[in-house]
């Protein structure tokens, strides 16, 4: 009987993994959102192509359902109208990436309003919430770009840790790191550092979009294990093809085993 594998996350990495594995295994692809594509969007040409291949190879698509726990080769799925334990020999987790949290950076200092993860800032700005007049955007990648695009030309964002190529304002703080938040009710300054040097940047909003980390939110599948493989490429600027290649490499030994 073919090995049963569940792939969690239907962005390009998850779709690619599901397609590779479906040749020799019985594969189910679980996605939290009601459509495939993840951060790439379901209209991306590669997403469409991968989706068609998956369907042709018999991958079972389970959309709009959240994977929560992996225990003794059973995966807990919860979604409207569905709560189930799915039995499988192996879990491939392709849940995408997010910017580093304050603790991970690490960023210390005050607990002031106005400090947001890049993901959250993007959602709020999309919803036309004004986050500040003088934002500082830390980091240089997918989430930083999205946030800057939403902020538009009107807001003069100070960029910290962005490559000099990202624009003239970025160059000033390109090799600095965020150290601490200052302020009482709302952030007033971001303390940044480079070697022994420290500077305080006045601001009323800080967006943390630096240092991509893998999103890991299935209990029991937080770190690599005999029955868990991760396909998450953490880098600031990646192409769809790089993600595809990385996913294939991540699951290579699993692919060999199942074929």
């Amino acid at each position: 009987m073919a090995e049963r594998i569940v792939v969690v996350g239907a962005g390009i990495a998850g779709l690619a993994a599901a397609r590779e594995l479906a040749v020799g295994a019985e594969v189910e692809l679980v996605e939290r959102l009601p459509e495939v594509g993840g951060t790439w969007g379901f209209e991306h040409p590669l997403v469409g192509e991968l989706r068609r291949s998956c369907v042709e190879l018999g991958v079972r698509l389970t959309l709009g359902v959240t994977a929560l726990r992996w225990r003794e080769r059973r995966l807990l799925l919860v979604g409207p109208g569905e709560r189930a334990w799915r039995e499988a020999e192996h879990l491939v987790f392709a849940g995408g990436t997010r910017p580093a949290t304050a603790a991970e950076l690490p960023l210390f200092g005050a607990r002031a309003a106005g400090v947001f993860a890049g993901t959250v800032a993007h959602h709020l700005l999309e919803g036309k919430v004004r986050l500040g007049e003088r934002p500082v955007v830390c980091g240089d990648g997918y989430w930083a770009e999205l946030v800057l695009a939403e902020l538009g030309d009107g807001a003069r964002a100070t960029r910290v840790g962005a490559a000099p190529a990202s624009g003239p304002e970025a160059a000033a703080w390109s090799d600095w790191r965020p150290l601490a938040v200052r302020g009482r009710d709302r952030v007033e300054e971001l303390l940044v550092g480079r070697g022994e040097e420290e500077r305080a940047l006045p601001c009323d909003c800080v967006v943390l979009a630096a240092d991509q980390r893998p999103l890991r939110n299935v209990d029991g599948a937080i770190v690599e294990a005999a029955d868990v493989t991760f396909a998450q490429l953490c880098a600031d600027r990646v192409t769809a093809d790089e993600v595809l290649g990385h996913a294939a490499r991540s699951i290579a030994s699993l692919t060999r085993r199942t074929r």
Partner: protein
Amino acid sequence: MTRPGERLPAAVDVVVIGAGVIGCAIAAEIAQTRLSVCVLEAAGDVAEGASKANAGITSSFYAPPPSLECDLLNESNGGWEELCGRLGVPYRRIGALTVAFDAEGVAGLDRLEKQVRAAGVAVERLTGEGARAQEPLLSDACIDALGYPDEGIIDPVRLTWAYAELAARNGATFHFRAPVVGFDAEDGQVTAVRTDRGVVGCRYVVNAAGVRSGELSALAGGEEFEMWARKGQYWILDRDFGERMSRIVLPVPTATTRGIEVAPTTNGSVLLGPDAEEGVEAEDRGTAATNLGRIFEETRRLIPSISLDRAIKTYAGSRPAAEEAVRLRFDEEVPNLIQAGNRSTGVSTSPAFGRRVLALLGERGESTRPREDRVTHLERTPRLLLEADPTERRERRIEEDTVICVCEQVTAAEISAAVSCAVPARSVEGVRKRCRATGGRCQGSVCMAGVILLTANAHGVAPGEVGMGPGTGSVGRG
């Protein structure tokens, strides 16, 4: 935070100042009688001071007998299962270990063991081996230990909210961002409490203002005493590590502090901390690399496998420090002012605090019999994270199957309950306090925008107006 049009009551029997764990526990007891009660809080939510900085431990022992603190702990510690069951507060009696590494530590344990036995608290002396059998992650360097089987862990913020919610369901009113600015007095008795939002007439005042209670006592013409802030910082480590721990682990206490400990939480995570820093402002919630670095080193002596790549958050809070450990009596100057303050064991003594304040009112001839129609239980929104088998067949609303915070496994139903209860969340932090959403390993990267929208919808405000907490700062600006 102030609801538009919300007014303070003209007069009540009892005004409680402070919506920390002690103030809320007292309000919960009083509200079950025929006495009317209102709670005035300077901050924007319950548990904004020391109760939030609490490590979430229900102590079985803290101070040697004879002492009021010891009595209050003994009166409280047997009842946690019943109380937490009734109020839906996560609680587990997991036990604690105080561990020694050298001859000096062993001598400290000898002294401690005598005190604990004198207090009538369950305790066992363990070898290093015996301690490691209880907590396999404990350092091999531990040579001697005291085990406290009756020590437990609790969600201290959820407890504070639950007391407040129970009080509110029984008719108590809560007023946030209502700092007390003065008192009216007649013949030496307080007749009204003044806030910058209005005046409340009263027959009794309970001073449960935590670190500000000295200041308020002086303002009321009561006893002079000093309370000051002792700041402590913490690391929170992921549930992935926390689930491997089975006991609270502490070093041998010194004369001034119980020490930096490793404490599993009811959410599955682990707290490392707190340190103790004086001479700070009560509002100072800042964290610093040096303090947190030291905390990490000290806790790694206890549990060597602790690793910061499992850190999900750092935070700081202030607990009140004072010469007198516990104040629980009528003031010597103002006869209708009750002093209700505790320097360190607020959560652990809160059940007894509530009952004893009610008894003090009884001594003055007030009827403290509970009403027949009082609410004693809080209905529970099923908490997905704690459901042993979430697939168990039963009828569910669609919100119960919609996961918003994936890391902490919080559903839309749980968030909805948090923003629409009697003492509702009005900020992102308020939601986190009540149901844990945004508090997990990704710190809201995935769900915070959703939490903000749900909170905004519940209160009929724009998303930008939702508070972030703990201060007055909101999500948006302009």
